[in-house]
């Protein structure tokens, strides 16, 4: 007997669609990365170019830049789907919304969080982050940026019906980003000073697990409210 219902159908479908759409609009892909680089460039210029000082602040600077870059790309997550009516179709379809939403967030992360993580060592070198800190930086970003995408998507879903959602998203989402920022940059600091990192990664992993389970529910509910209102 062939099962007619497959959970991975809507998931893979939505994932492929989102990846393909953004592949065809390459500027959206590159913009957060350029922003990421530029924010990190502003710090030596604005604060101090002293290598010792930069090495101290590098973990925080890279994390804050990653956070802002994620936030910047958040507004467009549901915007175009909302405007051309695709979002409404997704909500009406019998497929589990949870999976569709999760796929969209995963696609968003693959297009922003993952490239940011891969680019982070370059920033680390530019900011004189000691070589010991690199592994901590990459792993903490790898664990932390999906959480940023998940939480940011809640804000994006809540504001998708509003004409000017951009600033509002930052206002709603930044307070919720703070725990990720604290533990992410603490992990990098810990890696620099040679402390055991297991605890930081465990907490980042716990936040990610909680986000994976709960956030799609909140995103789905928020989308239904935004679209119906």
């Amino acid at each position: 007997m062939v099962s007619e219902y497959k959970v991975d159908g809507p998931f893979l479908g939505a994932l492929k669609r989102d990846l393909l759409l953004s592949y065809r609009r390459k500027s959206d892909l590159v913009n957060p990365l350029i922003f990421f680089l530029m924010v990190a460039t502003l710090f030596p210029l604005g604060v101090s170019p002293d290598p010792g000082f930069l090495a101290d602040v590098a973990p925080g600077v890279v994390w804050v830049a990653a956070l802002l870059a994620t936030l910047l790309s958040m507004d467009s997550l549901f915007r175009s789907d909302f405007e051309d009516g695709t979002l409404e179709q997704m909500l009406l379809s019998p497929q589990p919304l949870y999976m569709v939403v999760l796929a969209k967030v995963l696609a968003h992360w693959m297009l922003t969080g993952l490239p940011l993580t891969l680019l982070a060592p370059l920033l680390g070198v530019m900011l004189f982050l000691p070589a010991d800190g690199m592994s901590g930086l990459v792993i903490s970003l790898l664990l932390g940026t999906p959480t940023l995408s998940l939480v940011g998507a809640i804000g994006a879903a809540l504001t998708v019906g509003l004409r000017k959602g951009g600033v509002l998203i930052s206002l709603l989402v930044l307070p919720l980003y703070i725990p990720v920022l604290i533990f992410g940059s603490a992990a990098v600091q810990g890696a620099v000073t040679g402390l055991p990192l297991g605890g930081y990664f465990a907490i980042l992993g716990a936040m990610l697990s909680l986000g994976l389970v709960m956030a799609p529910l909140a995103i789905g509910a928020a989308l239904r409210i935004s679209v119906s209102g």
Partner: protein
Amino acid sequence: MADKKWMPRWFYQLASPRWCYDITGKLLPIFAIAAVVMLVAGAVWALVFAPADYQQGNSFRIIYIHVPASILAQSCYMLMAVAGAIGLIWKMKVADMVAKSCAPIGATIAILSLATGAIWGKPTWGSWWVWDARLTSMLILFFLYLGIIALNSAIENAQTAAQSTAVLALVGLVNIPIIKYSVDWWNTLHQPATFTLTERPAMPSEMWVPLLVMVIGFYCFFAVAMMLRLRNEIIQRERRSSWVRDLITG
């Protein structure tokens, strides 16, 4: 029909805006008097008669405003999230209105908590602000309130606004345990919780009884502020119904 005898009549009648308006009108003077009596008696007791702390001298007395404000700011958030959830699940209008009325009060109380904390911090720690776990998480709570107010005012449709803010409030609920346990999880400058329900306080009763009076007084004050805002909200939301017209025209 399901048997609902276990639930008192007044409880489910609260869901009716008109009935809620009437009952809060009756409760308002009671809570107002209680709040004034408690706050005045508690403040005089706390600021004049309670003994000075053996380490901090008289500067510790701000505890009598700081601790109740901090507790209340968190309780208010909990109430907002619970009322929001009730509104979201059972589409109850009054719950939405309660949730909406909570946010500005909570934000104000959170400011009070942060300000009194800063005033207390200056003589005890030597600085107005320290980036410690509890202070920061309290600041995040304040930001959450601001975000909720901003979202609520950005959405024009009252029902959509209520539902959206309810979702946001529920998501922000993760911050409450972080504030609560921040002092136990991270070893920071901030002293551990002054009050727990299960254990006897470490300080002498002359010091904690006025604190308890102040806490109850703050809650009564909150009830008054809450009911005033709620009544306002009910009148505004129900302005097209006949009973509100009768009320206005007399």
